[in-house]
């Protein structure tokens, strides 16, 4: 992969980030009334904070200047003050972000571990019993909304079997090995809900990509080399089938973040998703805006990672 390709992808990410920020700002600007109006009426807010916020957002300037101010503030991480938590929004989000990233990351890994072999097996044996079972399960998997799967898991593993804790606790009050075990136990369900949902659609992507690749001439060439079916599948089929899968996974990222919000809410995982919901329920506008902005940045970031992966997986792209 060439350096130019990397730089080009980075440059392409900027307009999409700007585009998303314009959409966000438009929503904010179109919102009826003054979104910070309650600053004045809320006695809990020190008047000097309210004044500085109003000045920062320059609510009487022309639209594009307000946008510029807003963007600069957002990019600087200057996100204001949380009314509900009484700390700066950037501190609050930085506290919560790692949890979200860990849950999403673990779920992605789980999804890949489950979906890749299943999808490949199903794709190399199309219309076999295994394929049909896998396909049906995948269909059920992504038709099950995350909030329902979450409740089902709680019902089975917490209420009935009492194996796993119902909600996630940030402060476990233990150390060392017991802390680690408790941490794993309380992470199983959130990660499983998100991972299996993502895995279900991944199975179908992998399967159809494998089906497309298996028929290609170079797979026959690989078979004629006498390297064994296993190597033919792993080196030649899976390796190329991953290319379209990466794109589809990137397109799925916004859905994954949506799932993360729901999952965090169900299991009370203290990430930015549950922060968003609680901020909305308590009318904490700066937090709402900042979290939405962070989610937008994460989507762009993951798209960028997918682009780079794509260029690394497909040598034809990097040279174009």
């Amino acid at each position, binding site marked *: 992969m060439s350096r130019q390709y990397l730089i080009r992808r980075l440059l392409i990410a900027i307009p*999409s980030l700007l585009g998303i920020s314009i959409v966000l700002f438009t*929503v904010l600007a179109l*919102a009826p009334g003054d979104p910070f109006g309650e600053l004045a009426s809320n006695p809990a807010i020190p008047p000097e904070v309210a004044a500085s916020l109003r000045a920062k957002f320059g609510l009487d300037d022309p639209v594009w200047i307000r946008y510029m101010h807003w963007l600069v503030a957002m990019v600087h991480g200057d996100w204001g003050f949380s009314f509900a938590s009484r700390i700066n929004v950037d501190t609050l989000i930085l506290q919560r972000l790692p949890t979200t990233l860990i849950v999403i990351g673990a779920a992605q890994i789980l999804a890949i571990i489950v979906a890749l072999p299943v999808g490949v097996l199903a794709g190399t044996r199309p219309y076999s019993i295994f394929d049909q079972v896998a396909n049906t399960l995948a269909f059920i998997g992504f038709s*099950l*909304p995350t909030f329902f799967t979450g409740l089902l898991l709680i*019902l089975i593993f917490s*209420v009935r079997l009492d194996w796993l804790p119902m909600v996630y606790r940030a402060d476990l009050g233990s150390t060392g090995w017991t802390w680690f075990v408790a941490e794993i136990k309380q992470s199983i369900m959130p990660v499983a809900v998100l991972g299996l949902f993502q895995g279900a659609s991944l199975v179908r992507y992998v399967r159809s990509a494998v089906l497309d690749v298996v028929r290609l001439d170079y797979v026959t060439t690989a078979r004629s080399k006498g390297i064994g079916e296993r190597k033919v599948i792993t080196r030649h089929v899976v390796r190329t089938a991953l290319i379209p899968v990466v794109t589809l996974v990137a397109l799925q990222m916004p859905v994954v973040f949506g799932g993360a919000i729901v999952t965090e809410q*169900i299991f009370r995982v203290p990430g930015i998703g549950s922060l968003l919901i609680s901020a909305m329920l308590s009318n904490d506008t700066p937090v709402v805006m900042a979290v939405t902005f962070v989610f937008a940045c994460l989507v762009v970031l993951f798209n960028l990672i997918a682009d780079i992966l794509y260029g690394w997986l497909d040598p034809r792209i990097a040279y174009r």
Partner: protein
Amino acid sequence: MASAVVLLAIVLAVVLGPLVWRVPINEIDFAAQLAGPSWAHPLGTDDLGQDILARLLYGGRISIAVGLCAMLVAAVVGVLVGAIAGMSRGSVDAALMWLADLFLSLPQLPLLLLIIYLFRGALTSVFGSQGGIFVMVVAVIGGLRWMQVARLVRAQILSIREKEFIEAARALGASKVRQVVRHILPNAMGPVIVAGTIDVAAAIIAESTLSFLGLGFPPDIPTWGRVLFDAKDTLDVAPHWALFSGAAIFLTVLSINFIGDGLRDALDPRRVL
């Protein structure tokens, strides 16, 4: 096929059900609080002793109506954008497709939540609490799902517009709009129907998610997601409450997805892409 039967049964149940099952959705009966299924309440009751079957039948109407209306919004916007992009080419086309790509990479749920958070007050004052939420949920869900349809319509137009019968129509002096409406759109219908079907399922999930997070319809309108939201805190004592409402969403979405898949095979959108 089985999925079509299931879906038909669900739709008939929510349309006709409330006419047959005449238990009111908000009859509070503390004597029958959180009761399991019985003859009086086939699906049990909730924490206020309200009949769950009646609530689900009523809520299903709203959930399915939201799904259908949001799909229509998405389809109309998508066809318009796709048709304009496909017919105009050049910079307009590029700009619209860039917009579609941008919308595809928006974090949908956070944005959905944000819009509802910011606009809820204004809309409820115009349309009333029930109507306001309905209009907003439909508009926002539909407004965030038009991209797929737009791409399909545009691809179809690009592939068909050079074909002979369009040349012929152009030679006969048919206007651009007329070409699109009379000749191109009917050809693009197959893939659009498939995308639309899947959009219905996605919109139902989106609405349920909003209600489940407590940010969708108010408690007196028992959409499926809202019922599930209310039920989640009593999982240990009244699991039937959550199970029945969740199952309603799941079965509907599953059968719609299966139908979409069947339609995809039958209509084969590959010939377009």
